[in-house]
């Protein structure tokens, strides 16, 4: 056996295979949940009804912040999960709040009139709150614990299992 050729082959192949293996192991489109473990950015916005809402008011309680739009089909698929969770965990002290993303208030109101809502929906003029949370598409949901720390960010519709398991951990 030619050890020199074998060694040279391994020297080139092993690092390349390692890099490729690391690359194949993750989705290149997957973005980091950069805010997980950090303090949730504070914001003050108005609800669709014009009432003021401040995240600070929910201090000391777990909060679920859901960014959504009416033009987003997965958001509509996710809606029953939020409804169910709000019915179950709202009385236990969890605050639910929705932030409208790149959408018009009257469309959101019409959808909520049809589908129901147990939480305030906030307008986000200029998308500044969405930017503060690093939202790159909807739906995105942030679970904020009673200390104000983002414990989990879910990109895409939240499943019933993830919703329940995350809220159980936060309570």
């Amino acid at each position, binding site marked *: 056996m030619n050890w*020199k050729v074998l*060694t*040279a082959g*391994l*020297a*080139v192949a*092993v*690092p*390349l295979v*390692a*890099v490729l293996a*690391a690359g194949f192991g993750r989705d290149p489109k997957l*973005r*980091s949940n*950069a*805010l997980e473990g*950090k303090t949730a*950015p*504070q*914001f*003050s*916005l*108005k609800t669709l009804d014009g009432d003021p809402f401040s995240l600070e008011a929910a201090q000391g309680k777990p909060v679920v912040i859901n960014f959504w*739009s009416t*033009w*987003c*089909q*997965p*958001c509509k*698929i996710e809606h029953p999960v939020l409804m169910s969770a709000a019915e179950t965990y709202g009385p236990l002290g969890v605050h639910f709040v929705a932030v409208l993303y*790149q959408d*018009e208030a009257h469309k959101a109101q019409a959808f909520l009139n049809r589908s129901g809502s147990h939480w305030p929906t906030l*307008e*986000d*003029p*200029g*998308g*500044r*709150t*969405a*930017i*503060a*949370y*690093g*939202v*790159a*598409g*909807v739906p995105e949901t942030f679970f904020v614990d009673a200390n104000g720390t983002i414990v989990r960010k879910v990109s*895409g*519709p939240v499943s019933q299992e993830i919703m329940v398991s995350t809220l159980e951990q936060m309570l």
Partner: protein
Amino acid sequence: MITLLLFCFSLNADAAGPLPATAETVAELSSVELPEPPLEDPPDAATAASRTKQLQSDLRCPVCQGLSVGDSPSDAARAMAQRIEELVQQGYTEDQITSYFVERYGAWVELEPPSGQHQALFWAPIGAVGLGLLGIAAFGRRKKEQPSSAVAYTPDPGLEPWRARILAELDGDA
């Protein structure tokens, strides 16, 4: 599901509805706490425009494929572009604004990640290959430089008569 998400993004990118655009309107309706105050005084209009343009070119549109905030027509990019402009006008430096977006979107949001960070992942395998090749070259060179005497000569007994005859002939020639 991925198709549905892409559907969402594409709809968003194509949506033509105007954003609530002016800074005054935004300030009246909402506020978002920033992690730190601006490090500089508000710049003059020309400086602000130049900084804004540069940052909009350096930061990635979050809903596009490889497009900068400045190059994308999507609503999400326009919102980011507007936010960048607001922060520049308030006196936030380029580093502060870049950090603000990186903290929220990750290093991915920079079209060209800064040198020194995350570069090790790229250079480590290349360095490993280089070191391997250098090792092989050094090994080969050392073998080549070894003196021939290092290999012990073990005469074949069957060839001994021939060897003696050659030596005798050489002696005769001399």
